[in-house]
């Protein structure tokens, strides 16, 4: 007879009829004032002229709410670069969606933030590229970014909005994790996300510059565990394990096409933000079809949904409905086959190869190749 609130997990095995999605990541634009070398956007960034208009986003959000989506993550690029963000937010609020703004926080005036809060914004997630000004400015490629983020965080708290700090972790900032947690407390954040870089797209290009050393990873994990205990009740710490140093793969997206969908600036609907790195997948677009039809029927969502697609050793693994086979984009990046066992799993024949890569890349020297439009090559160039 004890009261409990459990994390949602659609019941039963993944059968032909998947459960409705819980979350939608709306990449409103790929434009961004930062140039982080591990950006999760694709190498071929979509241009402003290709972006969905306000009315289409509003229709998508209505369809998402009707489909069962509860949480909306407004992301990019930099979502505040969209002048119509307040209108999109008001629509989300009217549909009952929980709204989370994922922002770099460098170009948002106090007045603009007030407008977003008044439009019904529920929560702000602010990125920091480091705990020290020099680190943030160097990694983001934007001088002065750190100071502007601090000022933005103060405005968020002045308005009473809940704040999460998030940091993508790599060689240049992994030793700043304790300082990041202190920064979060100082800025009044209730939550921190420590997310090790995931090596697809831009981060894969920069892997030799980003990969931390094993001893750094172990020390960071120890510091995070210590802080979790010490700061319990003051700061919630969510940490994503670094794939290249794991024994088991992460349950990527909590399973492909199982809880989340991602809409790109031009309206393509993806099972995860990196899914376009996988060749041969057919993505449907919200300009052409309703979101429910895309969720239940599109070939990209069907491709790796559930467990039927799995090879051995995944298919007979007792963890197949815990980690859902890990990450398809990583299988592609390392094994050359998106349907292979995620090499982050120690049962993968390529697991030792992943460890060797982590070891050698962590000792390599390479300058950052910052994200940008030019780096993608001319329009129409092959990816």
């Amino acid at each position, binding site marked *: 007879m004890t*009261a409990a*609130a459990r994390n949602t997990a659609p019941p039963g095995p993944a059968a032909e009829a998947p459960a*409705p999605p819980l979350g939608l990541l709306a990449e409103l634009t790929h434009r961004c004032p930062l140039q982080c070398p591990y950006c999760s956007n694709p190498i071929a960034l979509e241009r402003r002229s290709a972006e969905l208009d306000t009315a289409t986003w509003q229709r998508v959000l209505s369809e998402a709410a009707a*489909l069962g989506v*509860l949480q909306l993550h407004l992301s990019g690029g930099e979502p505040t670069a969209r002048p119509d963000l307040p209108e999109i937010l008001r629509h989300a609020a009217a549909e009952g969606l929980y709204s989370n703004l994922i922002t770099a926080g460098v170009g948002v005036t106090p007045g603009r933030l007030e407008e977003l809060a008044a439009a019904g914004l529920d929560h702000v997630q602010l990125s920091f590229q480091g705990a020290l000004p020099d680190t943030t400015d160097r990694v983001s490629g934007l001088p002065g970014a750190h100071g502007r983020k601090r000022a933005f965080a103060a405005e968020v708290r002045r308005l009473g909005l809940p704040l999460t700090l998030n940091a993508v972790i790599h060689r240049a900032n992994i030793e700043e994790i304790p300082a990041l947690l202190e920064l979060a407390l100082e800025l009044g954040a*209730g*939550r921190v996300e420590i997310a090790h870089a995931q090596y697809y797209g831009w981060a894969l290009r920069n892997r030799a510059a980003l990969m931390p050393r094993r001893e750094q990873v172990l020390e960071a994990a120890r510091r995070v565990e210590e802080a979790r205990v010490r700061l319990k009740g003051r700061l*919630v710490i969510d940490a994503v394990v670094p794939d290249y140093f794991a024994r088991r793969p992460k349950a990527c997206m909590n399973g492909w096409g199982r809880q989340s969908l991602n809409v790109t600036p031009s309206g393509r609907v993806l099972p995860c933000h990196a899914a376009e790195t996988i060749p041969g997948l057919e993505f449907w677009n919200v300009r052409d079809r309703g979101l429910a039809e895309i969720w239940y029927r599109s070939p990209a969502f069907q491709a790796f949904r559930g467990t039927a697609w799995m090879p051995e050793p995944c298919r007979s693994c007792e963890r197949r409905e815990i980690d859902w086979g890990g990450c398809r984009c990583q299988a592609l990046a390392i094994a050359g086959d998106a349907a292979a066992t995620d090499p982050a799993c120690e049962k993968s024949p390529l697991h030792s190869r992943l460890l060797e890569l982590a070891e050698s890349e962590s000792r390599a020297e390479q300058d950052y190749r910052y994200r940008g439009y030019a780096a993608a090559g001319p329009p129409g160039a092959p990816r």
Partner: protein
Amino acid sequence: MSADWSGAVVPRLARGTRLRQDPARGGWVLLGPERVLQPDPIALEILKRVDGHASLEEIVTGLARDFSGEPERIEADVRSFLGGLAEKGLVEVA
């Protein structure tokens, strides 16, 4: 943390935390930053009484009356449940 609360504290959902119905899956959900929680029937009865006005004592008294339960046991349940949510930053007390 909840062990230190007096009966007079007034719990409320933190800003950025919302309780709503979930027609697509049935039942209710508690939404917070990167959190979707499904309260069981007892948890839901507690959450519905967390309105920023009722004190801990009033919540316990109301539940004991409506469900003819032992107040001591209900109080232990309420403290444990709301204390857990407070640790996650989803509930605050004033």
